[in-house]
């Protein structure tokens, strides 16, 4: 396993819709400065925004961690709960548990996790009720 050359941790606050996208914009800016290929950059931007939004809409707060090595970009989303009761169902396109507020804003299309999985080269999700959810996404560069 290669040492991570750079790591950034972004704190994401539950229900803070006004700041949604700030962490993803910073991530994208940083990767663009590093000269990451625009196609890969776009995939990372979509995945990070969905992860950030999921933390805001569904979690009790958490972090988004960006790690950069010479061969890959890794994004890890960690939250402190409440956990996903049925991961298989949550991964289905169109399935959403978003509340009315989120839906009124145009979220809750049930595309968040599918968009993350589609855009990452490697996607893993673990969740425990009462403890939290961890999503790890890797992108080859």
């Amino acid at each position, binding site marked *: 396993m290669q040492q991570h050359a750079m790591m950034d941790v972004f704190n994401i606050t539950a229900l803070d*819709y*006004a700041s*949604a*996208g*700030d962490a*993803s*914009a910073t991530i*994208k800016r940083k990767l663009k400065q590093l000269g990451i290929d*625009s196609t890969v950059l*776009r995939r990372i*931007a*979509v995945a990070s*925004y*969905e992860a950030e*939004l999921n933390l805001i809409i569904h979690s009790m707060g958490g972090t988004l961690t960006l790690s950069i090595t010479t061969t890959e970009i890794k994004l890890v989303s960690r939250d402190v709960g409440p956990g996903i009761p049925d991961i298989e169902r949550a991964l289905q396109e169109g399935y959403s548990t978003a509340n009315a507020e989120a839906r009124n*804003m*145009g*979220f809750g*299309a*049930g*595309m*968040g996790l599918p*968009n993350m999985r*589609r855009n990452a080269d490697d996607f893993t999700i673990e969740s425990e009720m009462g403890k939290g959810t961890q999503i790890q996404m890797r992108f080859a560069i």
Partner: protein
Amino acid sequence: MNIQELAVLLNATIAQEGEDMTMPVSCGYVCDLLSWVLAHGQKGMAWTTVQTHVNVVAIAVLMEMACVILSEGNQLDMASLAKAREEKLAVLVTAKTSYEVCGLMMRAGIAPPQA
């Protein structure tokens, strides 16, 4: 067609100027589901929506869109407008419906996004 010309075509007011209003529009799109837009958004896109909150700006900037078109006279809230100004994102407001906006854009030769 560039952003400035598109504003004229749609009889739109420019709620916020973009960094370069002569930037060509690469394709057109309409959708109010933000995750859907994230999956299909493209660089240079002109995106029509009735959503007006700050995440519209965040997504348009993330996707490096040419502009956002708010249909049926919808206006960005103050926070969103401030964000659009900060990010230099072009925002057009038109009284036309999203349906009319799409019709006019198609007729003017603005293509749908490429898969």
